[in-house]
């Protein structure tokens, strides 16, 4: 994953956090390794595009992606992003060593999932409705025992898919409050800047240009659902017509294409930088005509 990443960036991680990024399958069973590696992979791709003169009109990051989004919008420096994400990853790992996680339900509306979760709420095995990835794709976060019950119910009510995710923490739920507190403290010590473009916040799906709101999102998105579906609706209303998804995945591009079929999309996981920039240039010239 990191073979193309500028070596100095990788070294920066070790210097700042004492963590050596191994870039091996074995290493990627550790979520600190995963989060930091994804972060610097994204920072590296953003740096290379910025160096060639590209600047976004609007940024959005899903969960961990908020840091790359804030970096692309010049809110946070690479050094600070690495420090905060290192803490985030460690705290998430320590928060719920066993028994907690996330599930995904496809084919039900948020209000339908909310109904199931409310009817089945059990204090000993709490579950919360979390991310809204698309109109019919909702996640739930909490106790694995509780989630399994919800998934079963969801299938009974007509969900096309309902399964556990390979996520070992109940992210984007109130169960993450302690982690959010620690992140808020460290973010309070960092100098952050107003975004240089529109930033879409995970925690409420609103657009913002205020550093306070972005800071809140960086520190607290783990206790709120990610309103990705709403964020993409807002992006559409800003007449955004092309998108770049930074590695490692291309899931967001798929969701975007389903919502807005006319969107011109690039996913860096499937493309080298030169090809991505060729396409962006082509689209830019088409617009001029």
């Amino acid at each position, binding site marked *: 994953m990191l073979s193309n990443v500028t070596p100095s960036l990788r070294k920066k991680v070790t210097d700042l956090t004492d963590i050596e990024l191994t870039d091996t399958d074995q290493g990627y069973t550790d979520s600190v390794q995963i989060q930091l590696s994804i972060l610097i992979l994204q920072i590296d791709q953003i740096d290379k595009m910025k160096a060639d003169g590209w600047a976004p009109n609007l940024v959005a990051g899903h969960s961990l992606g908020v840091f790359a989004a804030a970096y692309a919008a010049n809110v946070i420096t690479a050094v600070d992003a690495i420090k905060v994400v290192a803490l985030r990853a460690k705290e998430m790992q320590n928060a719920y060593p066993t028994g907690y996680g996330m599930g995904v339900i496809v*084919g039900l*509306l*948020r*209000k339908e999932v909310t109904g199931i979760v409310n009817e089945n709420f059990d204090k000993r095995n709490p579950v919360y409705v979390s991310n809204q990835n698309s*109109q*019919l794709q909702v996640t739930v976060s909490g106790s694995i025992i509780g989630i399994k019950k919800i998934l079963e119910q969801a299938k009974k009510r007509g969900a096309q898919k309902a399964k556990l995710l390979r996520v070992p923490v109940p992210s984007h739920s109130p169960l993450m409050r302690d982690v959010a507190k620690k992140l808020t403290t460290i973010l309070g010590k960092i100098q952050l800047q107003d975004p240089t473009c529109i930033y879409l916040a995970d925690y*409420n*799906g*609103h*657009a913002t240009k205020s550093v306070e709101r972005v800071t809140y999102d960086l520190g607290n998105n783990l206790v709120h659902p990610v309103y990705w579906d*709403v964020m993409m*609706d*807002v992006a559409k*209303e*800003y*007449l955004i017509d092309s998108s770049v998804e930074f590695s490692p995945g291309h899931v967001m591009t798929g969701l975007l294409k389903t919502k807005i079929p*006319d969107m011109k999309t690039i996913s860096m996981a499937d493309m080298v930088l030169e090809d991505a920039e060729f396409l962006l240039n082509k689209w830019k010239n088409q617009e001029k005509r």
Partner: protein
Amino acid sequence: MSEIKSWTTHRDAKQQKLENAASLLDGKFAKTKDAKELLELLISSNDKVVLEGDNQKQASFLSKVLASVDPEKVHGLHMIMSSLSRPEHLDIFDLGIANKMDFSFAGPQSTRVSQMVADGTMQVGDIHTYLELYARLFVDLIPNVVLVAADKVDREGNLYTGNNTEETPVIVESAAFKDGIVIVQANEIVDKVPRVDIPSDWVDVVIPADEPYQLEPLFTRDPQNITELQILMGMMAIRGIYEKHNVQSVNHGVGFNTAAIELLLPTYGEQLGLKGKIVPNWEVNPTPTLIPAIESGWIKSIHSFGGEVGMEKYIAARPDIFFVGKDGSMRSNRAYGQMAGQYALDMFVGSTLQIDKYGNSSTVTNGRLSGFGGAPNMGSNPTGRRHSTPAWQSLRPDNDPLGKGQKLVVQMVETFGSNKKPVFVDHLDAEEVRKEAKLKNVPIMIYSEDTTHIVTEEGIAYLYKTDSMAERQAAIEAIAGVTPVGLRSDAKTLADLRARGIVALPEDLGVSRGQAKRSLLAAQTMDDLVEWSNGLYNPPAKFRSWS
């Protein structure tokens, strides 16, 4: 004696503002680059400002300029807009240039509107139908400044607004005769306009725009996307409503259901021998799917709210059908169109996203404040109507000596929406949205009491024939398929409703499901429409799959 009261304070204030801006004006004309400074001089904080923008035509140059003015100089504006369509319409609220909004439709910006209302950035005066909003321009929302768009302006300041005249006249009139300031963006300054749509006398300032105003081909439906289920519903509607009630005049909403009907008239309608007998007169935008019906002699007249991109040449060549000026281009008029649609039509046929068990329908969904367009005007029974037509009279109850007719208001929906969720529900999402957005009324598009027919793939419910809410609910359940509402229906009730003519299934109407094939459409592709038009229709780029 007390001081002599001045009766010309508005006129004096307007004069003063124009004098302040005199150095930027050559007669009525300003330079493009001075637009921002001009708006800062001519608009005062807290003014009521109309910014032209409906669901098709947008004064996009002036909206961008308004979003660039200094909020220190201009703030707290009360905006009046029939449609919130562009990002900068909301940016002016983010920037504090405006804080209050009275509007009709916000479909293209409905998520941000909903968010801004929730966080208090935008205060909503009210949500209106088009006709109501225009009406209030002459009563309690009289504007201080109006910002509108013209295609061409001559050296005197006469405006040509052409095919897309739409709401420009009603907006300009509300300001021009009440000492408001009329500011026009122009695509082009010319020596002579093709015709005068707005006289120069009503215009104060003309600014050449940096690019032509935005225009959306909103009503174009590609026949390629019409399904056989929609064709079946179209056939049922033609037999069970158009023919049955002898409908002479109609408005079709935007949608594939009604596009299917338009394309079935020259084929299925012809087979039934209905040509010359139904729907000669239309109040509708010049939708390309009407071309085959026009060409085969079904349609005698069409008046339009607005234009439709690509139809200009075709319209110019068919002045017997459309309202066309001496210059050859169409004159649309949104206010008159709405008036005609409300008072002069036998029937409105529309579609919706949700219908509740009582028959109320709404296009509002959670998290979006989309408002209304013209459907509530057209989709309502105007109780002030006094003239009679056979269709209107056919709905008259026979047990009331003082009874009168009723407009036909038809909703055509498939029982499940594109997201596989039921269209028929116990409670509309709109009820939730009322609470979230703190609205006084639930944003219902068409009320049950006005809805006379519902058509689904199952059949037709003749709601006007029901004489209690329980019976109305039973009729809706009978055609609601396997939705939770529909599952409450049973065979015995259905048989009874059919026997009494309150519900009709395809077989009751003599409609054969097997005949509902795409080959029955008079045009199956955009290419076919171009051919029907003898090459006069010129589809916008996004509808051209063959080039």
